[in-house]
């Protein structure tokens, strides 16, 4: 079993378009500043490298290859599902979480169900937890994604 948090939002577009916005337009909706960016001072650009085996990266200088790699893309099914690994800058070996996003057509557009799991790989005193207990930490993490998804919805 795995500690996880799930949040959801409905976008008034088709699933293919919701998937495209989520991936291609990631730098547009991924909020800026220290709360959201991996190395906020470097003013990087977020990008999903398309396809399984691609990466989620924050690019600082493309020519010099300067970037932060959050993780590999594990599932890339446009219009249906996206799964990628997620490591924060302060994660150690073996500490890895996973983000699993499902895109599902509904009456008004596309329901995006985002699950962020694998938090049990971070020990209770890990700095990413900000000293919070499991429930408070996961709820905070859910709120973090909610803010992101609201920004994504604004693009649709």
């Amino acid at each position, binding site marked *: 079993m795995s500690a*996880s948090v799930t949040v959801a939002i409905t976008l008034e577009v088709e699933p293919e378009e919701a998937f495209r916005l989520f991936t291609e337009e990631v730098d547009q909706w991924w909020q800026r500043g220290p709360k959201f960016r991996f190395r906020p001072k470097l003013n990087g650009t977020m990008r999903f490298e398309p396809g399984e085996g691609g990466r989620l990266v924050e690019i600082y200088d493309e020519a010099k290859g300067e970037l932060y790699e959050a993780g590999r893309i594990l599932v890339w099914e446009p219009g249906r599902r996206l799964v990628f690994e997620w490591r924060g800058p302060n994660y150690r070996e073996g500490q890895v979480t996973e983000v699993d996003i499902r895109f599902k057509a509904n009456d008004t557009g596309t329901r995006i169900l985002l699950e962020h799991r694998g938090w049990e790989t971070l020990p209770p005193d890990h700095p990413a937890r900000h000293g919070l207990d499991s429930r408070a930490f996961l709820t905070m993490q859910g709120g973090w994604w*909610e803010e992101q998804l609201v920004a994504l919805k604004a693009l649709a």
Partner: protein
Amino acid sequence: MSEKTGSAAAQVVPALFYDDPNAALDWLEQAFGFETCLRVTGDDGVIQHAEMEYGNGRIMLGGTGWSDFPTSPKSLDGKNTQCIHVQVKDVMAHYERAKAVGATIAAEPEDQFYGDRIYRVFDPEGHFWTFGQTMRVLSNADMEKASPGLKVEGKG
């Protein structure tokens, strides 16, 4: 979610206690058509907190036993101290859906003197729900006529 803090957000949000919140969440999706918008799951795989939406309404659900007062109707011989009522677009379709998933129907859909068609139902842990649809818009005078002895005041 966006709807959580926006002006259209539900301001009254009932919270329900379940011995098995994981099963309850799945069941409320399948039988009643609620959509999960937040799910917080602990290391043991048990849901600690979840929120679900129906139209512009929202409920929360969680476990029992985390303090003296939260308990399931299952542990109270099925007694309830309150009931959640949901207004739906097509009450007959809702009734058929709930019944098909095995919901315990407490009262078949029936037209009420105030113009709504209502059915009553228990979920698997014995929480009492009612679902209704307005079939006829009646004046207070019409309602009083339909149910002698009652005085109807205010705007329903």
